[in-house]
């Protein structure tokens, strides 16, 4: 098992942020973030849009000056590909 496998497994197990994963796997946070980027490239996780879609399709867009409070985080969700991998290994 390598960093990439371990990180994917940690996400599938329910670890929710790179710091948490890094601390469990005794890695640097940036290594974990790097692994997440690679997993994204491979199609195992995908980035979800936060509020930008909601704002652009909001019915109040014309009158709204931009009330949306958007945290600068990036959220990734596990894809079917990762699930099938998990199910396959079980």
């Amino acid at each position, binding site marked *: *098992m*390598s*960093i*990439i*496998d371990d990180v994917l497994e940690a*996400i*599938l*197990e*329910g*670890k*929710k*942020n*790179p*710091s948490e*994963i*890094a601390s469990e796997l005794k*890695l*640097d*946070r*940036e*290594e974990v*973030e*790097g692994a*997440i*980027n*690679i997993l994204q*490239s*491979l*199609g195992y*996780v995908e980035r*979800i*849009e*936060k*509020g930008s*879609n*909601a*704002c652009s*399709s*909001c*019915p*109040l867009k014309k*009158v*709204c*000056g*931009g*009330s*949306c*409070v*958007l*945290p*600068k*985080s*990036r*959220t*990734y*969700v*596990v894809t079917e*590909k990762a699930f099938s*991998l998990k199910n396959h*290994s079980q």
Partner: protein
Amino acid sequence: MAMKVVALAGNPNVGKTTVFNALTGMRQHVGNWPGVTVEKKEGVFEYKGERFLVVDLPGTYSLTAHSIDELVARNFLLNGNPDVIVNIVDATSILRNLFLTMEIFDMGLKNVVIALNKMDLAEKRGIKIDIRKMAETLGVPVVPMSAKEGVGIEELKETVYNVAHGKVRPNPVTPTYDPDVEREIRHISMALSQTELTERYPVRWLAIKLLQRDDEVMKLVLRYLGEEKLKEIMGHIGEAEAKYGRAMDLILASQKYEFIDNLMHRFIRYTKSEGINLTDQLDRLLIHPLYGFLALGIVFYVVFKFVFAIGLPLQGVLDDSFSAFGEWLAPHIASETLRGLLVDGIIGGVGAVLSFFPLVFLLFLSLSVLEDVGYMARVAVLMEKLMRKFGLPGKAVIPLILGLGCNVPAVMATRTLDEERDRLVAMFVNPFIPCSARLSVISFISGAFFAKHHALVAVSVYLLAIVVALLSARFVSTFLVKGEETPFVIELPDYLIPSWKTVLLHSWERSKEFVQKAGTVILFGSIFIWYLSNYPLPVGTGSSYAEKIGMFFEPYMKLMSLDWKAAVSLLFGIIAKENVISTYGILYGSADALVNAMTPLQAYVLAVVTTLYIPCIATIAAIRAESNWRWAAIVTVYMIFVASLVGITVWHLGSVLGY
């Protein structure tokens, strides 16, 4: 003579655009890559009398075919015949960046130059990179740079020139995998050899991509070798995967990562405590399950303290100014009806709301600073942990935080949740999160009734709303909609000093909406409320429409010790929450009259009920649009019930405690 072509490749956010701009200056052209809506930037630079065409490729982490950006970058590297490939690598996160470098090396491309950017930042973090050894290990020239400061640009031009003219001949290292994988690569390479494909593409790269089940390469093989051969190769790959018990793309990526890790140790060393930078140190505290919440409470207490300390005196000045303007205007209007409408209705109602502009602006300013610093992302992580404990899907945290600004886009943002169950739960809970409109009401009540502890009162109302939201999540996920959660991960940004220009601009954009609303919804609301409170007879006679409507609800309001005026205010608050303030402004005439008419406990109950009682009409419409009428009705009825329950409880509890 045709210009030499230089391709810029790199991960997102490595400073690729800065390097591109530094190289090309103003000589740029922006268009689209053929057939796709991916931006293509080209520019020209001159060096030693020769012109070079620079093509900025989309930022990618690898060169698989999962995204259009990756495909565009890959196709250009393979088919665009660049004379030099400048791979921009972030010196502060080499491991992640070299993954793309190895993908380029896998392609068998030789003319590669590494522009090692952000060297200044790497040094600050105690990352020591031996440039000579790095170049030796990787087999390509490495140019250390700090593109933002303009450091290394001339050296990069010189290196590009030398490589383009064959004065420097790079010999990139070939990423290797374990013996079993290498055997698979050889096996597939043999199957592919002696076909036309190998004349156009590096055979080793084709084999690796087939092992990864790359759609585009599979299509190529199908076209050149036919279905039978492709089936045979894929069958073989399937057998290999079965042997490993894992997908080959994951195996290859893992081994590539290990390969890079091994190489890195030859040229990189960390002189400071690696990984424990300021961000990590702060995160240990700020996303800690216990200290994190304490810190959150303190942060928001400080925010409200700041907002009230500066905002309330300004609010007082504005309020006095509107009153003085009304007093000045009144004698100039002969018609009693018009005078009442302008002075009591419009200036009294809209002015009462507008006087809160300083508080709203300061709160948005504080939120923008917290956002820009990166703290709101930590709030998301903290809340997510809490929400999961209460049965709310963790991913709903983003819509919930959006709700601090406005509940309408927050409800729309529940679309990002995959499961119907998650969406319904998030929509159910979302309206409990106090939006900026409710902030005006909370500020109004805290400022008017709790001179000493206004910040504490405001934080307590927010806290109560969050507790109610969490308990509601538990209720709805237990009794109404059940399901399982999709795993996800939140990546946090580094803490940064905020850009004041961005923060001020953002705060103004958000606050502007408040003024616009005062000039539209609140204005018409105020006129209507003034009419209801003066016809057919003025308030106080018991015959005004407002009193009649309010009296109908008063027995219910009395359960939480509120009167008919509260009923009318809350009713108009459904259109826009700020109407609660304007209605009070019209019904009481002045803030002093209101303060004399209510006890602090009654005011607190009003603040709590206003925060919880019902979403505004736009939010109800958004819930209906995102689900159905039934769900919108359930949410509305539930909120009225919960607000009443909490209001009655707070009133009785406060009375028992002697408030």
